[in-house]
Structures are given as structure tokens and as C-alpha cells.
């Protein structure tokens, strides 16, 4: 019998919510092109003792945050997701994709303006009103701030020793600075996580530069130029692999490489977490270089 159907026992405390329950918003890309990111991260968070639940009936976040102040329609989708969080009795929403984080978080900020919230609530007469207060968190914030580096490093069973990993932030995790997961000019939150996992974080100057994003469709030449510079910068600093939290960044970094650029593999940050926690094997191309490490 599932736990929730079992008759309550008299001695149990009246706690309705699992302390480690986390609601999470996957987003379309993680259900399609970036399934490995979701798989690795959920396995790792499970290992850390979290009961990660997919947000019921989530809808696409809209992907690109609308800059038009009067384009309220663009906020309807994100706010509807926040209402789902509210309905589930939670106040925190975990995101994995950097773009989803950006859009949802910015909409959550936008509707702090009472007039905008009132109009959006009036439009969504098919839902309960959004009351505000849902916190949108990105995975890296969850790891570094909610779990903390110390607890994280204690959970490591397969330290990423000897791996020189470069964190590529791109734009959407950092900008605008009001919603950035860290200082947009000198971010180090991902490096702190990598250190906790036993890896050697490699700082490279282009780690918060734009990869060209959606220009990949209309101006792949621009993206190729950007990607070339990013990879060169990472290689010069000695990174063996790059980690990202964005499926579009990953696509660009892999598929828009100019000829002759350093062959640096790109992984999701959730995958590195899964290696270190022992729920996934370190890929061979990286394990090889790890073998030579003197312990």
C-alpha cells in the first residue's frame, strides 16, 4: 500500500510535508534534447536524500524573457507555473535549465509589482490567484546554498580528483544581476561546487561571455566566432572539459565549433555531480586523464 494511503498511526507527528521534498521544473529541453542532464541530476539528488518531484502540470516557461514592460501575456505562462507550486503547498521551485531559471525567476520578480500581478490574475480567471512568494532556485544555488559545500563534499564517494573542469556560465545564470546566481563579473558558485566534488576548477576569462544563443539559427557565423573564443580561452587556462547548465549553450559549444578549435568535451553540471556521488561513471575520455593522478 502506498504510504499516503496507509491509515495514520497515532504516534506519528502531524508533519504533512516531507522535509526533503523538492518540487522541480524540468522544462521542455530536459524532456527532449537534454535528457541526460535530468537523468544524472535526479539520480544525484536522490542519492543526497531528496525526494524530487516534478511540478504537476507544468507548462513551458516561454524560454525567452520578454523585455517589453507591457507584454503581460508573456508572463502568463511563467506565473501559471508559480501557481502550480502554490497549489502543491510549496514555496520553492528548483530549475535545472539556465533559461528556465532566468524566465521563471524574472517573472517571479516582475509580478512583485502589484498592478501587473492584479492584471495577470484577472486574466487567469481559470486558476486561483497567484499570491506571490514562490522562490525560484537554480540547481547551482541549491547545491551551494541550500545543501552547502561541506555537506556536499561529505557525500562524495568518487572524488573528481585530478579533473580540471571549467564552469561555463553563459548569460542566463548571471544576467541581469538582480536575478544572477552569483556576481555576474566574477562568478564562482560553480567553481565552489566543483571544488566540493573534488575537482580542480579552472577559471577562464570567457566563462561568462555570451555564446550567441538563438543566433545559432539565423547567424551561425556569429555563434561560431563566439564559441571559438570561449573554447580557446578555456583551453589556454587548461580546462579538460566544460560544464554548463544550459542546453542551448551546450548545443552551440558542441555544434558550432569553428575548424581547428580545441576539442574540449562539454557536460552538464548535474553530470559532474552524478559522477562524484557515484551514481554515474566518469566518462572514459575524462577517466583516462584521471588515472595518472598521483594520490
Amino acid at each position: 500500500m502506498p504510504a499516503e494511503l496507509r491509515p495514520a498511526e497515532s504516534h506519528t507527528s502531524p508533519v504533512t510535508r516531507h522535509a526533503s521534498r523538492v518540487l522541480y521544473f524540468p522544462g521542455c529541453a530536459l524532456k527532449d534534447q537534454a535528457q541526460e542532464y535530468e537523468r544524472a541530476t535526479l539520480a544525484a539528488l536522490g542519492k543526497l536524500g531528496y525526494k524530487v518531484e516534478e511540478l504537476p502540470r507544468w507548462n513551458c516557461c516561454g524560454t525567452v524573457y520578454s523585455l517589453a514592460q507591457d507584454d503581460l501575456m508573456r508572463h502568463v505562462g511563467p506565473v501559471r507555473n508559480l501557481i502550480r507550486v502554490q497549489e502543491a503547498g510549496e514555496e520553492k521551485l528548483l530549475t535545472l535549465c539556465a533559461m528556465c531559471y532566468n524566465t521563471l525567476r524574472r517573472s517571479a520578480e516582475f509580478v512583485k509589482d502589484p498592478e501587473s500581478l492584479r492584471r495577470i490574475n484577472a486574466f487567469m480567471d481559470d486558476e486561483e490567484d497567484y499570491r506571490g512568494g514562490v522562490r525560484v532556485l537554480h540547481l547551482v544555488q541549491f547545491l551551494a546554498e541550500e545543501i552547502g559545500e561541506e555537506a556536499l563534499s561529505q557525500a562524495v564517494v568518487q572524488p573528481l580528483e585530478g579533473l580540471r573542469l571549467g564552469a561555463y556560465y553563459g548569460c542566463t545564470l548571471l544576467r541581469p544581476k538582480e536575478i544572477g546566481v552569483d556576481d555576474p563579473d566574477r562568478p564562482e558558485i560553480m567553481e565552489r561546487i566543483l571544488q566540493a566534488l573534488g575537482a580542480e576548477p579552472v577559471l577562464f576569462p570567457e566563462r561568462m561571455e555570451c555564446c550567441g544563443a538563438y543566433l545559432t539559427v539565423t547567424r551561425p557565423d556569429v555563434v561560431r566566432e563566439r564559441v571559438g573564443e570561449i573554447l580557446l580561452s578555456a583551453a589556454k587556462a587548461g580546462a579538460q572539459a566544460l560544464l554548463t547548465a544550459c542546453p542551448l549553450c551546450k548545443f552551440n559549444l558542441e555544434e558550432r565549433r569553428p575548424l581547428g578549435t580545441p576539442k574540449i568535451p562539454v557536460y552538464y553540471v548535474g553530470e559532474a555531480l552524478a559522477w562524484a556521488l557515484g551514481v554515474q561513471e566518469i566518462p572514459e575520455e575524462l577517466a583516462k586523464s584521471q588515472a595518472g593522478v598521483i594520490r
Partner: protein
Amino acid sequence: MDEVQVKVKPEMVTVYIMGQAYQVPAGLTILKALEYAGFRLVRGVGCRGGFCGACATVYRLPGDYRLYADLACQTTVKDGMYLAILPFTPAERRPYDIRKVKPTGETLLALYPELARCVACNTCTKSCPQRLEVMDAVQAALRGDVAKVAELTFDCLSCGLCTMRCPAEIPHYHVWQLARRLYGAYLAPKAEHLHRRVREIEEGKFKEELDRLTSLTEEELRELYKAREIEPE
């Protein structure tokens, strides 16, 4: 005993059909009310049973801002209702060869890229007379879950009401049809027992029995029919 003829006067309501007021008996469906009012419908009607989706109708009620959408053959008139039927929703069905496409989200998006314009306003769901979770189906399409799209839209009548109201101009019912076809062609479990039976028939398993039946006289057939085994209830 003298026969007493009782004439019950039906209760009448006022409906506004495309702006013109008509008195019609309460309890009629919108479709019958249209005919009662003298309209001869050549479009906007088909099965009269809630299956064909031809009688898509939009209406408002006094003092209510909402624009309701329903099937004329399935909805009874209300006093003060003002309505118009929308017998057809123009939407382009993109050509494809079902044997050459894959059952993925990419197929849906390649043929109907406007899916990505969905702003999750839920207007489509609110306008569906079948009460389908139309927006959820669009969302499932966006995340490449073709089976889910097929499941959520199984009862779609292609009435076009969602498509007429969508601010993202998505031709929903064509997308649904494609998803269901992809599901049927590639994702639905194959009915092995059916193939087995077809093979058995081709191999002549029932030939002897059938030949015997076709050679009987009508009288013999009747007797056989009466003596047939009937499964217990």
C-alpha cells in the same frame, strides 16, 4: 368521458442569433433553436450527436464577460444567450508522408513550428467543448511526448474552436491528428493476436466450417441459428 385537450404552452426564452432576437422554447438545443427560428442549416450541422464537430458555436450570456464555446447540438439555450455558429475554422494542414516521418517532437515542430509560440494562456482549454486539456497537449507536443499528445486529444472533434481563439495561431486539430497518426503508426503496441488470426484465416483454419455453412439451405441455417450456443450473461 369527454376528452380534455390540455395545451401546455412551452416556456419561451429569448436568444439572439447573430444579433437578431428570437423567441424559442426553453429546453431546445441551440441547433434546434436555430431551426425553430427558421434557419435552414446546410453547414454547421452534421451528426447531431456530438461527434462530428461541425456545429461549433460561440455565445455570451448577459452580465458575463466570458465568451463561451460549445457544440450547438449538445447545448441547450439559455435566456438572453447571444450566439453565432462557426461552421469552419480555416487552418492549414501541412503535407507529410506518414511512412517517412518519425514519432518525435521534432516532427511536430518541423511541420507546425508555430507550436513554439504558445504563451500558455490556456484560452484553448477554455474554448474546448470536449473539455480536453488542450494547453497540456500543446505543452506535451513542445516537450516531444507524442504519445501524451495522442492520449490527451483522443476525443478531439476537430471543431476548430481552440484554433480560432489561440493568440499563437496554432492549428491545434491538425497537430492532434498528426500526433494520433504517429502514435498509431509507430508507438501503439502492435496487436499481435490480430496478425495471428489473419494468418490463421489465410492458412485456411476456418475454411471447412465456412464451406459447410455456405452449402446449407435457408431452413438448415435457421435451425442452426436457433440452436446456437449463447454465452451466459
